[in-house]
């Protein structure tokens, strides 16, 4: 029988499935970051003056900021002057239909299993595809339009719905929020924009698929989702990148706004290139995601399945401003080889009777480090606020780390906050039991890990839950406790 070391070596050597590159002509900004770069990007995108000014404000803030020091990993050397801040597939005019998309690009997404051809599209899912920070295709536009739903690239929204963008841009994640958010404000290239009008329940999943292709670029997309009174939307993002030896930076910003009784469900399946087994290459995934439950009885729910990236560093957050608002965070983070994850959530209880629930499942293998970090803050006005947090860590092998760093700040005596955390490994008796029923060790581990993550996976829309399950299995196949 194979011993656990062999099997662990095996996982370490497993290849990243989506590591190919697409050979396509790109238009890129000159390397470096200064005011000129920002003007270049803005001009390329034919943006109005107000947009440019907002970018410049972000850049001013960025220049004054420094990298933080509190994270549980060594901050890699990042030379932001060596990146190109704009890369777009060249053959891009205004695309009127999918037929105009570069066939090479279509083939790429075909290969990734992302159907951007509407005939082949997953039933009930509208997809916006972002290739090196530029939205290349949005499906089911017509159908959504009938309902008054706006689902388009950010750039398009700036042109076609400037009032909405102006009203909400930067209201949840200000241009000076943190150094990466400031950088994003200055140089963001594209992303998705969603507006769900009052009383509309979006009939299909909205989805954005992100792909980094070009070399020496960073990806800086920006997503803004507004759910007006009594509306509902479920949104999913997925991501991959080619294998490259150097690290690439992904510094996106996502802003969610839920008005009265509105609900936004945001799901992420993140599978950026994690680097090789020695920790060379891979994406630095430094993302700022935050939602605000502005209206009473509104709800925002984050679900994330994080398996990729060399470093995952993000805390999708919810500001519960309205009374009776509800926030949720469900997370599975898997790290192996030399991957690092420092992720979790921040929930700010401001309104009365606000509720939040945090379920985090960390799985570490190889030489990786997996940290849950989270903040639950109860403000003085948040009478009867309730939070429940459960953080579990699973260790596979004895060379990895699993850490839990919650921050709990309660300023209201009527609030109830509960936090529980456990750390354990996969039980040998569980593996043996499954072996005895004819299930080999690799499958047994996948089964146990999937079971362990069940509560989170259940939150994903069905099609993506299947994908996420598969991803978990191939990521961790064969690890032995």
């Amino acid at each position: 029988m194979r011993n656990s070391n062999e099997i662990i070596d095996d996982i370490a050597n497993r290849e990243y499935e989506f590591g190919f590159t697409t050979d396509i002509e790109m238009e890129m900004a000159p390397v470096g970051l200064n005011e000129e770069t920002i003007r270049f990007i803005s001009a390329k995108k034919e943006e109005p003056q107000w947009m440019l000014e907002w970018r410049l404000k972000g850049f001013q803030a960025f220049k004054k900021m420094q990298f933080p020091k509190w994270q549980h990993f060594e901050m890699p050397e990042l030379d932001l002057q060596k990146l190109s801040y704009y890369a777009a597939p060249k053959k891009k005019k205004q695309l009127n239909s999918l037929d105009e998309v570069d066939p090479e690009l279509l083939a790429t997404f075909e290969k990734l299993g992302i159907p951007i051809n509407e005939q082949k599209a997953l039933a009930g899912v509208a997809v916006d595809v972002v290739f090196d920070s530029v939205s290349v295709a949005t499906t089911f536009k017509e159908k959504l339009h009938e309902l008054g739903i706006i689902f388009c690239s950010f750039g398009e929204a700036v042109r076609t719905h400037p009032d909405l963008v102006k009203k909400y841009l930067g209201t949840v994640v200000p241009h000076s929020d943190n150094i990466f958010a400031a950088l994003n404000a200055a140089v963001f290239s594209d992303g998705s924009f969603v507006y769900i009008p009052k009383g509309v329940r979006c009939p299909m999943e909205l989805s954005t698929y992100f792909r980094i292709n070009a070399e020496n670029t960073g990806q800086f997309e920006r997503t803004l989702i507004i759910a007006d009174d009594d509306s509902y939307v479920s949104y999913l993002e997925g991501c991959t990148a080619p294998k490259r030896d150097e690290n690439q930076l992904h510094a996106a910003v996502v802003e969610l706004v839920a008005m009265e009784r509105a609900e936004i469900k945001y799901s992420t399946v993140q599978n950026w290139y994690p680097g090789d087994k020695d920790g060379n290459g891979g994406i630095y995934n430094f993302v700022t995601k935050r939602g605000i439950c502005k209206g009473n009885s509104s709800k925002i729910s984050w679900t994330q399945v994080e398996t990729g990236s060399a470093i995952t560093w993000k805390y999708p957050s919810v500001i519960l401003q309205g009374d009776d608002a509800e926030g949720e965070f469900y997370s599975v983070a898997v790290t192996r080889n030399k991957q690092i994850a420092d992720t979790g959530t921040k929930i700010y209880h401001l309104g009365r009777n606000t509720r939040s629930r945090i379920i985090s499942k960390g799985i570490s293998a190889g030489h990786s480090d997996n940290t849950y970090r989270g903040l639950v803050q109860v403000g003085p006005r948040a009478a009867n606020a309730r939070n429940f947090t459960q953080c579990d860590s699973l260790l596979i092998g004895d060379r990895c780390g699993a850490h839990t760093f919650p921050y709990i700040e309660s300023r209201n005596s009527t609030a109830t906050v509960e936090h529980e955390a456990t750390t354990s490994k996969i039980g040998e008796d569980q593996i043996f039991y499954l072996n005895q029923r004819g299930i080999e060790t690799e499958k047994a581990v996948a089964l146990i890990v999937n079971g362990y993550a069940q509560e989170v996976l259940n939150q994903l829309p069905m099609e993506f839950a299947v994908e996420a399950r598969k991803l978990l299995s191939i990521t961790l196949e064969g690890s032995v406790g």
Partner: protein
Amino acid sequence: MLTIKNLHAEVDGKQILKGINLEIKKGEMHAIMGPNGSGKSSLSSVLAGRENYTVTQGEVIFEGKNLLDMSPEDRAREGLFLAFQYPVEIPGVSNLHFLKTALNEIRAYHSLPAMESKEFLKLTKEKQQLVDFNANLMNRSLNEGFSGGEKKRNEVFQLAMLDPKLAILDETDSGLDIDALRIVAAGVNKLRSADKAFMVITHYQRLLEYIVPDFVHVLYNGQIVKTGTKELALELEEKGYDWLKEEVHQKESV
């Protein structure tokens, strides 16, 4: 079907099995009895391939193949089933999903195609009825929150589903009240057939009132010290194990 020859095994450097010899043929029901610590459960663990047991001597042939060379899952796929004394709980993995995975892994090993969902569900229903297993437990996480009796009945249900050649029941009766014991025993009896063999490990004669063995073996100090029929079990129940122990020690001192 199963031939055990001079089997010696140790765990943590301690000799547990000290030369077991046993032959089990198709259709037979063998009971293994013995006092606590005699090596009964160790025997089942060694046969199923638990990792911390080291075989130091002897051989085990199962259906013409060397059992000891195989991984635990291959032993299971070859048709050896162990009903665990303490079935484990696996949170988040549904009973149904687990069984389907196991069944199809075994089928794949025998180059059979995976079973269709419809067919699988039909089989599940049939076997549920056969061994009187509560359908409500099917969608629950594997053994999680099951009562002791429910766990043991789940073992018998799995036995029915996976249809092995040789089933080892490791103290399946311990901790069961009389009603649960009857149901478990009835399930096992329904599964008896001419091409299947059973090894029932038990501490109490009580079980053997419901599952009638063809042979009774007494394990003591890592060896089979006496073999007989079900009457031997009755004798043991009546007199306890002490007389046997004395007999063994007398033999040794001669």
